[in-house]
């Protein structure tokens, strides 16, 4: 079911999405995004480079924000922008909880802006904005 543009209001909140961060998921997403940087799969080298452990790559954070907003918006939504800033790393063993709030609507082209935040045990891993274009009610 796709959400219609007319059904969305500024201030609407998206349901929380907890993402368990396992060693396997951090490696699997890095490889699925073709990112072979050692800090995303080799704990020894990650520590040598100043990190506590391996950590999630930014392509995956983009992918999870994409998934989060489109799960809420539905399959007819078209993603127009994803703008993120990373804070603390996503390390194995933690959980990141994604939350989102509709912050703006643009009637001229049915774009909806969503402020997204992903918190883990250390603090904010990601803060940013996603923009999706939703169909009008009569079109769904």
């Amino acid at each position, binding site marked *: 079911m*796709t959400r219609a543009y007319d059904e969305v209001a500024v201030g609407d909140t998206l349901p929380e999405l907890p*993402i368990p961060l396992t060693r396997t*998921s951090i490696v*699997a*997403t890095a*490889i*699925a*995004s*073709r*990112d*072979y*940087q050692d*800090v995303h799969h080799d704990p020894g080298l990650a*520590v*040598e*480079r*100043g990190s*506590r452990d391996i950590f999630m*790559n*930014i*392509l*995956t954070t*983009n*992918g*999870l*924000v*994409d*998934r989060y907003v*489109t*799960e809420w918006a539905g*399959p*007819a939504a*078209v*993603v*127009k*922008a*994803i*703008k*993120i*800033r*990373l*804070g*603390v*790393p996503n390390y194995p063993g933690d959980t990141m909880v994604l939350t989102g709030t509709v912050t703006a609507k643009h009637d001229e082209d049915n774009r909806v802006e969503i402020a997204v935040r992903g918190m883990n*045990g*250390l*603090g*904010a891993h990601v803060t940013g904005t996603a923009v999706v274009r939703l*169909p009008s009610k009569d*079109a769904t």
Partner: protein
Amino acid sequence: MSGPNHGSNHSGDYEERLAAFVGVEVVPPKPGQDPVNVPMIRHWVEAMGDQNPIYLDAEAARATGRDGIVAPASMVQAWTMRGYAATAAGPAPVNPGRGPGMAELIALLDEGGYTSVVATDSEFEFHRELVVGDHVSAREVVESISPEKTTALGVGRFVTTMRTYTDAGGEVVAVQRWRTLRFRPKPKTEPQPEAAQEPEPKAPRPRPAINRDNEFWFAAARDHRLVIQRCASCQVLRHPPGPCCAHCGSFDWDTVEASGRGHVYSFVVNHHPRHPAFEYPLIVAVVELAEGTRLITNLVGVTPEEVEIGMPVVLDWLDADPDLSLPVFRLREGSN
């Protein structure tokens, strides 16, 4: 605490060599290894846990008005990643005949000691959805290279680039502002049980409340300039920034740059409540500048026991993150 490269990365010559990369297309348009294809989409959506049917089910995609399967928007960068073999082979060789490119920029950053890299910002705008068979190219232009900043990970520089993704016909499909921190990892310390449990890197420092009256002051701080507001009518200096001179009432003002010297006018040591962005004990001081104005700041490189009122101090800079630099003060050397 000089590292092997200390000094070379502060010299004017090094700065100029870095600055020469700004505006340069360091990655010419380069097609990804594979066109957009279902197996790579499947790997991506499985790993991400993304169950949107439009990425694998043509029927479901058509039901939304699309012509068929589309790739997840966020996947655009993945189509142009260099892959395992090139990553394992290490940095591309520097080629003096070819003009400055990414390999040369990375070599220059390595020369400055900035050997580690972490991505900090990605700002995508998607112009159209990618479909199976699209062959994506990416080119990359350097927008800016920051001055050296002290971050939770180590001392480094933020490198901001603009990536433009195009299809086989040259049409732009997405643009991405991309920022990485190139840094010198902090020296490894012996693992300590307590330290191992400490969260790092730290939470971002709380944002100052910036408005039209004080924006100039924080903008100057980002450039590592400590400025003082001056009344343009009666020349009286004032801080904190405000719209109107308390002495003569004039709304006209300009600024002067502080010498960076001052003394401790007063101070407190903050123990509680703790905020994860700060290190404790946290010394919060009122420093009276040589110019006469006072500002609230932190003292660094000194223990609370060593601080005395009247102690001479000198300006230093705290680079909390790419958008926030703040003046801090340390003891003026040779002052005892």
